[in-house]
């Protein structure tokens, strides 16, 4: 186990995770809005925001898939110590973490079952930056229309076409995050 695997968790878990959840909830409930989280210091290459999402939502009862550069010893050790989540292949994961490229093809992830659409994966996608420019978003949580710099649109449009099935996405960058639930309609670019 790497030395710094023991650090970087929430200092005050019940309070820090409550605050982080509230930001995640607002982000998912208002797709396109960019929120800030704090309290996590995961090992590289994970962002603060990705670390906070993991600490808030992932535990021994959820399967985690680490993709690409995120699948490294320091992250694995940190996950083992702070989350205790079993690592799993993409097809079985409840949560998956990586860059958009590393997560490809995203059609591997669970989209839920027709009778249990909730049994779908949540993708935590590390991006370089988050800004309210780019493809237009509409749907539940959005009053009229909003914009977000998504890594692409076709995959999200294909995912929306599966509704009420589909994966849900949290985009993370530094200490900021944005949500893109499966219900969001993404403009064709």
């Amino acid at each position: 186990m790497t030395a710094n695997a023991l650090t970087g968790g929430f200092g005050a878990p019940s309070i820090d995770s409550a605050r982080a959840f509230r930001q995640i909830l607002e982000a998912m409930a208002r797709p396109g809005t960019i929120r800030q989280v704090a309290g996590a210091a995961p090992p590289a290459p994970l962002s603060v925001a990705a670390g906070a999402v993991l600490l808030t939502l992932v535990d021994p009862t959820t399967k985690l898939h680490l993709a690409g550069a995120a699948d490294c010893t320091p992250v694995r050790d940190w996950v083992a110590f702070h989350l205790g989540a079993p690592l799993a292949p993409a097809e079985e994961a409840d949560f998956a973490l990586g860059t958009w490229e590393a997560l490809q093809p995203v059609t591997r992830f669970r989209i839920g079952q027709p009778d249990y659409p909730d049994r779908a994966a949540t993708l935590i996608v590390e991006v370089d930056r988050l800004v309210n420019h780019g493809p237009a978003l509409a749907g539940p949580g959005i009053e009229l229309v909003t914009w977000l710099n998504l890594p692409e649109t076709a995959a999200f449009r294909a995912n929306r076409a599966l509704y009420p099935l589909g994966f849900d996405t949290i985009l993370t960058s530094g200490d900021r995050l944005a949500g893109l639930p499966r219900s969001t309609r993404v403009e064709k670019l």
Partner: protein
Amino acid sequence: MTAPAIAYNFAYLDEQTKRMIRRAILKGIAVPGYQVPFASREMPMPYGWGTGGVQVTAACLVPEDRLKVIDQGADDTTNAVSIRRFFQRTAGVAVTEATADATVIQTRHRIPETPLTEGQILVYQVPIPEPLRFLEPRETETRKMHELEEYGLMHVKLYEDIARHGQIATAYAYPVRVEGRYVMDPSPIPKFDNPKLTANPAIQLFGAGREQRIYALPPYAEVVSLDFEDHPFQATKAAHDCDLCGAKVSYLDEVITDDAGGRMFVCSDTDFCAGRRARGLIGRLGGDQKSSKTFANSFQGIWPGTEGAP
């Protein structure tokens, strides 16, 4: 045996339980109106008394929140008092009766009259989350009906009402369709409140503890009350104004004032009513009423639990 001093976690629930509830809430947000199963915990209050709402609230609260708890629209009904105290004790959050000041509002059977805003969360206590339950008691069947969007039975039921009564005879827990997909039970709010469900800027979360379900409406979600073209949905209320504040547009409680048919109508939303009276708005019988407490005092001796002298 020594008496152990027990220190409960922030907002009572342990962290793993909160994570489980939080995951369910997020899936509920992602699929508006779909009932997400969750492993509801035994709470220190009985099932049926708001355990679902309490668990959802506990999973959402942050120390900075200002919590409002209402039951039947009122902040001072006994169960609202009990739940508010629970969170004061276990989460140490500030509480308020003012709808506009609250960041989280837990409610049973009402949506506040004062419009909600972005940044607020409304948590509903839900007794029976399944809108199809009284048409088909089996969960195994209703799950299939939701999967296949087989909502014909619900329309048949509503249509039978029209055939018998000339109108839809459902006065509360009036079913709605969310984003054109799932039929949802809005909890036993009067149908008067149904129009407030749609395009609401606040996040609306629904918790059913005993039935182990959580569902959600994201802000601005489209929520349509089921109806027929020739029998459109109507949000109705008693044809009176509030006797205390004179409001014409609020949902009313009926208060029996004597045993000779005397009655008055007052706002069910106590914060809304008090706010209007504080601004000098006065209803038919509200002239001498300085406060709801003074009003209550006039019933001393008639109603157990009232206090003060007449």
